[in-house]
């Protein structure tokens, strides 16, 4: 709490504290931001680019803001960057469709179930069965989130994962609080239903 008060003043040492706060904030938020972007764009490189762009925009434009405003600002930037990515992809895919009509072979379709069955080598924890079971649940949840309509997923992640309140979520999404509640409710029930269909009780 004290840090927010001392930030009002400007001096050499306090600037350093602000830099540290920003760095700490970004370190805390970067992994979740990456996952959010990945759910939305389904491309690792695209998601990493989105996170880097968002962090850069926050640093360049809003580093002088109080730390308590960072989560909200960052989420706004992140969602806008994801939308920009969609727009660029749309234009790109239009050209790809036009050009591919001249080529003889069809592109492979993305199948999320393929990624579901790939074993995750990065988990090196001592109880492999438990780890495996848990990581499978995580993968199923991530799959369910990927398959949600974009606005429902956005509302769910901002409200429950990023823990913004309803009004902040509405502001970040540029919609009404009522819409946020509706999106959140539908998303939660859709994910729960998906897990139930796979025999998992969340």
């Amino acid at each position, binding site marked *: 709490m004290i840090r927010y008060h001392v930030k009002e003043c*400007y001096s050499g040492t306090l*600037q350093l504290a602000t*830099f540290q706060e*920003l*760095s700490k904030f*970004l*370190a805390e938020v*970067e*992994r*979740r931001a*990456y*996952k959010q972007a990945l759910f939305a764009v389904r491309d*690792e490189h695209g998601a*990493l680019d989105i*996170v*880097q762009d968002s*962090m*850069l925009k*926050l*640093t*360049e*434009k*809003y*580093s*002088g*803001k109080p730390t308590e405003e960072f989560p909200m600002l960052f989420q706004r930037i992140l969602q806008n960057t994801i939308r920009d990515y969609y727009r660029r992809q749309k234009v790109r895919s239009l050209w790809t469709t036009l050009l591919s009509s001249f080529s003889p072979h069809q592109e492979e379709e993305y199948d999320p179930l393929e990624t579901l069955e790939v074993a*995750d080598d*990065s*988990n090196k*924890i001592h109880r492999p069965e438990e780890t495996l079971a*848990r*990581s499978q*649940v*995580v*993968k199923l*949840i*991530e799959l369910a989130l990927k398959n949600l309509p974009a606005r429902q997923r956005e509302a*769910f992640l901002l*409200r*429950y*994962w990023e823990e913004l309140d*309803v009004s902040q979520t509405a502001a970040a999404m540029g919609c009404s609080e009522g819409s946020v*509640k509706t999106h*959140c*409710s539908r998303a*939660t*029930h859709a*994910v*729960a239903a998906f897990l139930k269909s796979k025999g998992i009780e*969340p």
Partner: protein
Amino acid sequence: MNEPTNEYGLAKKITRHLDYGVANLDNRLQHRLQTARQRALKAYAEPRHSFSLAGAGYGHGSRHSHSPFRAWVPLALLVLGLMFVTYWQNTQEMNDVSEIDAHLLAQDLPVHAFIDNGFDTWLEGSSQE
């Protein structure tokens, strides 16, 4: 106003699983995210080492960002420079005129002699001789 408790509880259970997934993110991805963060933070650190006359005391958010005010500084300096050059040239001109006046007044000949046509003719004739 708030969501139903069971819905909120359910959502939190789901996000706990997501937290677990994020905590066990691939090392390669963690490293790439760390690199991305360091790159982004450079944008914060760089302006502090550069010339930052315009940013001084200007506002809360403009300390490290590219302030629009900053763009006006070179222009303002240019205008000030031009004003100084014009002022200096005018002063020099006035000094030159006053020096010529002083020189003329200090001569033995009266000032009217220089605008008298007869004096010019006499001067030319005497120089030919």
